[in-house]
């Protein structure tokens, strides 16, 4: 029903839109090529999984905000279906005889009609949520630096995109309804109802032309406008899943080759020092602020917001979008444009942001890349880390205590060393905290008693053990980590058949997942897993417990990062202790505040403290005891408890269990 002139104009417009889109695709390519490394080669199973689970079912979004996700789901499905709708609509404009016939045609019209309704409803919800309810979930605290272009950009973009979707879908619906004024279509209930409302007796051709053009023009404007709006996430989210290799854990870091003598710049503090995946992240970000909502230092009122990091990255990159070749000339550092240094050092490396992000972004990875740059290339880091590094280099432990004293905690206990038992079934990696920290030593003593009681063959390394280097790595000193890893592996390789057990989730994680980079393949178990095994094998005889309930805090690196959720819970249950869960538990656990090197420095300025927030959450459960399974969590909560009116004991699972053992070993 389009005239020849209209068809011609339409053809020209489609071509223009298409050419512009191709140009933008090229710009994206050039921008991303500024990043380091190479993108992962897409593999079919991952593509299939991404399309089905992440794109169609939006699986990663469902952990939070049900109503919002449902509305979003309708928009996504609507959008996917509208790809066909627009294609066929335009085809029929050129070739009016090409109409989908039969049941397929009917279903096609039905879905198009219904989805139009869903999209309009859902978009209304999002508009109300942003502008009427002014949902706080969409705000970033004003003191957190956002680029001026981001501040205005987010608003402008939201208005523009909402209007374009309204116009596009609304116009199509109206256009269809106008077509139906003389004969309604049972397969288009919505358009048919509207057509009756209009009350036209003849086909209003002029109006139909107007709305059809509006439908087409909006989509033709929309497509090339995409790269300037956050709605480009439509394209970049699937890419972000497909072009990233499956990470071993959410906290996996970029590999850094310290043997490469040609390297002069380590980590990243400029865009072209970031990995390519960080560029994908920026464009995939939907600015949903989920990451910020779960970020403990953000909640405590520090300057850190992982969302602000991604948003600033996005808008800083956008300045170069029309002239992408010039990105390399950008001399501004990431710590100036994207995230202030103070925020970089506030991160506890808890991984909650990366874990929750529905579009597979990895803010933590960027933060650690920036830390690497600051410590290695610029030699700028919080002063107290000097002591940490000195201690690690000189005494091979963060406490700086003599290596000779590593086994002092075991005085008076019978704890076999590898000299005494050179072929143990279990090689117990006590960890520096377990060896030197007063509170953690109590866990070590408890664990020793449990092991002795269970009568298994085990041994400790004593002076042969040194720090795994986790704190060095998370604060950016990859070189110290590297040295420690190589030394430790040399020791551990002497016991190839032993199962390693650790009483610290950070040791557990590092030995199990991070030494893999250096060729290690260690069989590592956390002590809560082993205790649970002992309970199941009836190696531990437990007393009838007291009835007071206990709450359990999942240490980030045991729970969220390594998915060990059940063994400590089952142990508590099996020993008859009643467990009351914290509101944020398992993968949603809230950091104790010690990770990412925070243990070794003062807090960055913030309104409250992460450990106090979490301790209060524990008190809210009404439990009589806060149990955990990490020496650092224990320290942080014990400190919080000490300055709190209401005090409940903070104990390791091992300590709780040892108090249940009938009689202590000789």
């Amino acid at each position: 029903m389009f005239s020849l002139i209209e068809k011609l104009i339409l053809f020209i417009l489609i071509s223009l839109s298409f050419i512009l889109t191709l140009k933008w695709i090229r710009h994206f390519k050039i921008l991303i090529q500024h990043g380091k490394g190479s993108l992962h080669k897409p593999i079919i199973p991952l593509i299939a999984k991404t399309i089905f689970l992440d794109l169609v079912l939006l699986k990663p979004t469902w952990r939070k905000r049900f109503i919002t996700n449902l509305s979003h789901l309708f928009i996504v499905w609507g959008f996917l279906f509208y790809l066909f709708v627009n294609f066929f609509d335009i085809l029929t404009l050129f070739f009016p005889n090409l109409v989908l016939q039969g049941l397929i045609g009917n279903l096609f019209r039905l879905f198009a009609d219904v989805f139009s309704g869903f999209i309009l409803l859902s978009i209304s919800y999002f508009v109300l949520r942003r502008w009427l309810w002014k949902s706080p979930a969409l705000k970033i605290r004003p003191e957190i630096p956002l680029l001026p272009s981001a501040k205005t950009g987010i608003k402008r973009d939201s208005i523009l995109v909402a209007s374009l979707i309204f116009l596009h879908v609304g116009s199509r619906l109206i256009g269809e309804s106008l077509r139906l004024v003389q004969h309604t279509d049972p397969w288009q209930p919505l358009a048919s109802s509207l057509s009756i409302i209009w009350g036209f007796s003849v086909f209003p051709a002029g109006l139909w032309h107007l709305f059809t053009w509006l439908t087409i023009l909006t989509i033709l404007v929309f497509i090339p406008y995409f790269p300037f709006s956050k709605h480009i996430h439509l394209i970049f989210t699937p890419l972000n899943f497909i072009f990233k290799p499956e990470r071993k854990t959410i906290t996996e870091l970029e590999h850094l080759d310290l043997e490469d003598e040609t390297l002069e710049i380590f980590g990243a503090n400029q865009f072209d020092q970031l990995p390519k995946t960080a560029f994908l992240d920026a464009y995939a970000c939907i600015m949903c602020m989920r990451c910020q909502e779960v970020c403990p230092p953000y909640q405590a009122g520090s300057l850190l917001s992982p969302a602000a990091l991604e948003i600033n990255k996005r808008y800083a990159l956008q300045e170069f979008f029309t002239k992408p070749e010039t990105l390399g000339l950008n001399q501004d550092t990431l710590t100036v444009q994207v995230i202030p240094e103070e925020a970089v050092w506030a991160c506890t490396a808890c991984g909650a942001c990366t874990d929750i992000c529905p579009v597979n972004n990895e803010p933590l990875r960027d933060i650690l890349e920036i830390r690497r740059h600051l410590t290695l290339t610029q030699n700028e880091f919080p002063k107290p880390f000097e002591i940490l590094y000195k201690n690690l280099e000189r005494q091979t432990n963060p406490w700086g205590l003599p290596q000779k004293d590593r086994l002092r905690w075991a005085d008076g206990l019978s704890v076999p060393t590898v000299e005494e038992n050179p072929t143990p079934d279990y090689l117990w990696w006590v960890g520096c905290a377990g060896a030197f920290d007063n509170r953690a030593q109590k866990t070590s003593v408890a664990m020793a008693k449990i092991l002795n009681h269970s009568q298994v063959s085990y041994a400790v390394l004593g002076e042969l053990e040194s720090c795994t280097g986790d704190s060095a790595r998370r604060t950016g000193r990859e070189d110290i980590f590297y040295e420690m890893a190589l030394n430790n592996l040399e020791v551990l390789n002497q016991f190839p058949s032993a199962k390693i057990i650790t009483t610290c989730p950070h040791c557990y994680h590092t030995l199990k997942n991070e030494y893999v980079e250096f060729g290690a393949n260690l069989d590592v178990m956390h002590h809560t897993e082993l205790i649970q095994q002992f309970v199941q094998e009836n190696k531990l005889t437990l007393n009838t417990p007291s009835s007071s309930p206990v709450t359990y805090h999942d240490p980030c690196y045991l729970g969220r990062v390594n998915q060990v959720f059940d063994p400590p819970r089952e142990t508590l249950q099996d020993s008859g202790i009643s467990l009351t869960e914290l509101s944020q538990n398992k993968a949603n656990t809230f950091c104790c505040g010690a990770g990412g090197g925070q243990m070794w420095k003062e807090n960055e300025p913030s309104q409250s403290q992460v450990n106090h927030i979490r301790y209060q959450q524990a008190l809210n459960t009404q439990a009589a005891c806060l149990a955990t399974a990490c020496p650092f969590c224990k320290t942080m909560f014990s400190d919080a408890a000490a300055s709190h009116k209401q005090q409940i004991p903070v104990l390791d699972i091992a300590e709780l269990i040892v108090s249940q053992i009938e009689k202590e070993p000789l």
Partner: protein
Amino acid sequence: MKIIVCIKQVVDITNHFRISNGEIDPDQSSTILNPWDEFAIEAALQIAESYGGEVTVITVGTMDSQTGLRHALAMGCQQAIHVVEENPDQLAGLDLAKTLSAAVYKLEGADLILFGKQSADFEYGILPALFAQVHSTLFIPFVSAIDGWDASNQMLTLTHQGHSEKQQVSAKLPLVLSINKDFGEPRFPSFMGSRKAKKAEIPQWNLSDLGLESTDLIPSGLELKAEPQKTLTWIDGTNPETAAAEIKTILHKEGLI
């Protein structure tokens, strides 16, 4: 300004160590760069930064001393010289001074030769003065600040800790200085610095390179003794008089009263 800092690797007395056969057992001890020398290096670097110049570090010692030299390079010194001597603790102070002096000559002298106040293991603190004597250079001990530099007259104004109070003096280069703590915390070596230092070539000289014969040097005859084990005697305090008498006898026996 050409600055040389003489440094030394010492036994880390904050760690466990063992003395056997009158010597420190190297297998049962660890060594560190003398912490006082770190202050001297810091001072040297600050002077070089303020007035221009290069800093060279020298040590006399075993291969172990290379750690200290590299630490100094990592802190920012430009050059390191290792005078290889298997048993530096066995050298009398005067001979150590002679050796260092010969090394400084070989480097064609210096404007400032800095020492840490003392070594953290033996704590004699005599080497800077001996060196100044041997090297015939003016010595100013316990320097805590550099206050000014007059390049045309080669005069340096500095503050040093006198007997009871701080004094400001001006003196013409060359000078030998011993440095106390007041220049501030020694800088922490950067990763980039350590990386460069790790790869740096450190020239190794032996006594004959310095025109010295080992027979020129007299061993110090130093013999280390481990402190006797402290013993605890329990005195029953129920009757104060007998307790007092008992204490008196013990003090007499030890020759303390």
